[in-house]
């Protein structure tokens, strides 16, 4: 079991209030991703759940038990660190067995579990090596192995993939998702990468300055962002925002249209624009166009078009937002239903 409830949890470091009182419930078996820009308090929130930081106020409950002041060793949670945090003086086997040894498990059972974890994570060939002799991906696997052997009630991941190169990151992302499908254990995953959040999460928690901006499934956040921040943060490339007259036409202070919801034509449309940079990805092309006579929040508008569409720098195009794909926001930046 691994149901985690945060009840008015807050954290301040001296005078600095990092996390104002906040409520959140993480259901058993859920894959929850905390996402937000750096310094938004997502790692601190994870460390509060882990017990590595003390809360300044509020209550943390794990499976209905008050765990607010329980030391990390007694919370029954496992954590995978960004730096892997392996024990450099121990072999892979001893690293993975460490939590079992601490739990006082008998030797035979320890070996059985370590061997199983090593097999699942493709570490069998490296089992007697030290962490220093392993590549980044292998180290990350050892860290995950160390977390899974003790069958925790929840896994905590603190930006586990940010030290890996891009190709490996995609692989590990799939492996972690696979792991979640097999174990069905609660996982809390912290990242600043919204792609990781979108692809892995059952539920995303978007944070900014310690405040939860929105909680929801990836598609909910994509389709109905609650405010300008979430709208701009979720989705890649990010949403385009228009203000002024165009927004006023829709009775809003700001309207947002995602790059994939703008139709492009070379002959006719609503807004005229000039093509700046065109990024060809093969399947898609991202156009960064400079609109003319339209007020936007940023200099360029991003448009996703079919990879076959041949447009170059300086070409003139017309943009038309698709019906029903316009997001409206009021003066305070909140979504207008």
């Amino acid at each position: 079991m691994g149901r985690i409830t945060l009840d008015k949890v807050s954290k301040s470091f001296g005078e600095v209030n990092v996390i104002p009182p906040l409520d959140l419930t993480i259901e058993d078996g859920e894959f929850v991703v905390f996402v937000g820009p750096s310094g938004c308090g997502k790692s601190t929130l994870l460390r509060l759940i882990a017990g590595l930081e003390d809360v300044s106020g509020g209550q943390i409950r794990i499976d209905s038990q008050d765990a607010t002041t329980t030391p990390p060793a007694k919370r029954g949670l496992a954590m995978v660190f960004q730096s892997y945090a392996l024990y450099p003086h121990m072999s892979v086997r001893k690293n993975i067995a460490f939590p079992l040894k601490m739990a006082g498990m008998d030797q035979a059972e320890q070996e059985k579990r370590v061997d199983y974890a090593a097999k699942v994570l493709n570490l069998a060939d490296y089992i007697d090596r030290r962490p220093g002799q392993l590549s980044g991906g292998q180290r990350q696997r050892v860290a995950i192995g160390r977390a899974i052997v003790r069958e925790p009630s929840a896994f905590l991941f603190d930006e586990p993939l940010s030290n890996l190169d891009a190709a490996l990151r995609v692989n590990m992302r799939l492996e972690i998702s696979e792991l979640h499908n097999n174990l069905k254990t609660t996982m809390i995953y912290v990242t600043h990468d919204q792609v990781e959040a979108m692809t892995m999460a059952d539920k995303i928690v978007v944070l900014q300055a310690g405040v939860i901006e929105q909680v929801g499934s990836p598609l909910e956040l994509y389709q109905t962002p609650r405010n300008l921040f979430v709208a701009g943060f979720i989705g890649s490339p990010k949403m385009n925002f228009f203000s002024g007259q165009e927004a006023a036409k829709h009775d809003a202070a700001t309207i947002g249209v995602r790059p994939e919801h703008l139709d492009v034509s070379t002959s006719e449309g609503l807004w005229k624009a000039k093509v700046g940079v065109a990024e060809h990805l093969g399947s898609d092309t991202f156009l960064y166009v400079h609109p003319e006579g339209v007020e936007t929040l940023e200099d360029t508008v991003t448009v996703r078009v079919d990879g076959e569409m041949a447009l170059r720098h300086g070409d003139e195009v017309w943009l038309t937002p698709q019906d029903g794909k316009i997001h409206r926001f009021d003066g305070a930046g909140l979504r207008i239903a």
Partner: protein
Amino acid sequence: MARAVTTQRKVIATAAAWTIGIAIFFPILWTVLTSFKTEAQAIADPPVWFGFDWTLENYEVVQERSNYFRFLMNSVIIAVGSTVLGLLIAIPSAWSMAFVPGKRTKDVLMWMLSTKMLPAVGVLFPIVLIARFLDLYDTHILLIVVLMLMNLPIIIWMLYTYFKEIPVDILEAARMDGASLRSEIIYVLTPMALPGIASTMLLNIILAWNEAFWTLNLTTTKAAPLTAFIASYSSPEGLFYAKLSAASTMAIAPILIMGWFSQKQLVRGLTFGAVK
């Protein structure tokens, strides 16, 4: 062209390194050589290099005249004693400053270092008075405590930098893995800090072994270590270079041998963090 320049640079650097190395080592070599000469050859002008009658006479005389092993034992007791006592105090202090730093931790560290800037002779008088008052003059315990205090800032600083190198993540990982504070210290912290503690210990033993100011001023006979043994051959007897050299050689030999075998540890200890 570029290659020629680097080669030339290498040659110059190598030559410079050898020159400095020989310049530093020469006094020791000369002392050892002189210890095997007769007194006449020892002060011969021009000096004799290797072509003299090698003799062990000086060593015999030195052995006869003073009890080398008593001085040696005193040196061992004082060096090891002050090191062990120092580590007992320094490990917890360095530990707390590295892992639970407070607002004033940096200031405390700087203050400790600043005490090393005071000339030792500045506190000689009060310390001698205190020693007399406590009736501890010329005792092991006095020297152990004084040398420990003199070297404490260095031990704490060395250990502090070592402990700082241990990533906090790893300690937190141990906590997450269910380790109690005791297990965390036994299975994770200590093994990781052991090389640091070992090289700190070695360096401190050497510092305490070679310390002359306090050992000469605070001892007469009972607790006198090898530094006093050497000094006893300098002035009162007139100039007996060969015997003085024999005594010096005997005094530095143990620490030199220890240093030789542990040089890897020592270099690592002194450059830790800089090279890695």
